[in-house]
């Protein structure tokens, strides 16, 4: 894999799992997902500009089972990256570094993002069926 020979730090399986590790890994993973998701938004804009047929095709793709999974995944990735991103901004300002605060804010990112995702999908599904 690597063309440089350097000593490596122990890999993930060496460490005991902690919520701070999970939030850090998820922040990167959801960031990558959202980068790809932005291209889906561009696709939606292109189809909206292209005309009614193209836009209906886009809506059919998004309303299909696979499309719904992608949208649910995108929405959680969005809310998680949003919550944890705000947490990082607070930490960048120098606050919340005590271990207890750090652990608590990690759990808050995970839980609030799930609650927001749930609220959005309850709204979508009760406001008269999927998009």
């Amino acid at each position, binding site marked *: *894999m*690597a*063309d*440089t020979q350097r000593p490596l730090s122990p890999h993930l399986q060496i460490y005991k799992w902690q919520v701070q590790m999970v939030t850090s890994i998820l922040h*990167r993973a959801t*960031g*990558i997902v*959202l*980068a790809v998701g*932005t*291209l889906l*938004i*561009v696709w939606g*804009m*292109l189809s*909206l*500009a292209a005309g*009614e047929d193209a*836009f*209906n095709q886009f809506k059919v793709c998004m309303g299909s089972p696979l499309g719904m999974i992608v949208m649910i995944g995108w*929405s959680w990735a*969005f809310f998680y990256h*949003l919550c944890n*991103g*705000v947490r*990082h*901004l607070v930490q*960048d300002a120098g606050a919340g570094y005590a271990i207890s605060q750090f652990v608590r804010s990690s759990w808050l990112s995970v839980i609030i993002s799930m609650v927001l995702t749930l609220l*959005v999908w309850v*709204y*979508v599904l009760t*406001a*008269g069926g999927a*998009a």
Partner: protein
Amino acid sequence: MSTNAKDLRNPLKRARGLGSAQFGVSHWWTQRVTAVGLVLLGLWLVITVLGLQHADYATARATMAKPWNAVLLVAFLITSLWHAVLGLQVVIEDYVHTRWKEVFLMVAIKFLAVLGALAGALAVLRIALGA
């Protein structure tokens, strides 16, 4: 040639581009400033799209054609892709240790992001101007 007496690096090291490239601070700040922008733009986008879930094509297009929505949409696309490039750059630097793959990916994400931003902006212009 820079003759900074405090720089302890050998000039050859600088010539080969080893060590700090001196862009770290602006990368860090741009990542944070785009993050703050995306908190607002992302929430706006999600709320706007949720409001359109049962809209027909004409309504969806007319909503996005409103000047404020068009401006915010282009702002979202540019900010989001910029933030994505900065984030993906760090991921690539951390995990891709083969130099040619690293450089290839760095260039590829920038090409994709610029193409995505241009395509999205053109689509929004077509929607806003009715072309």
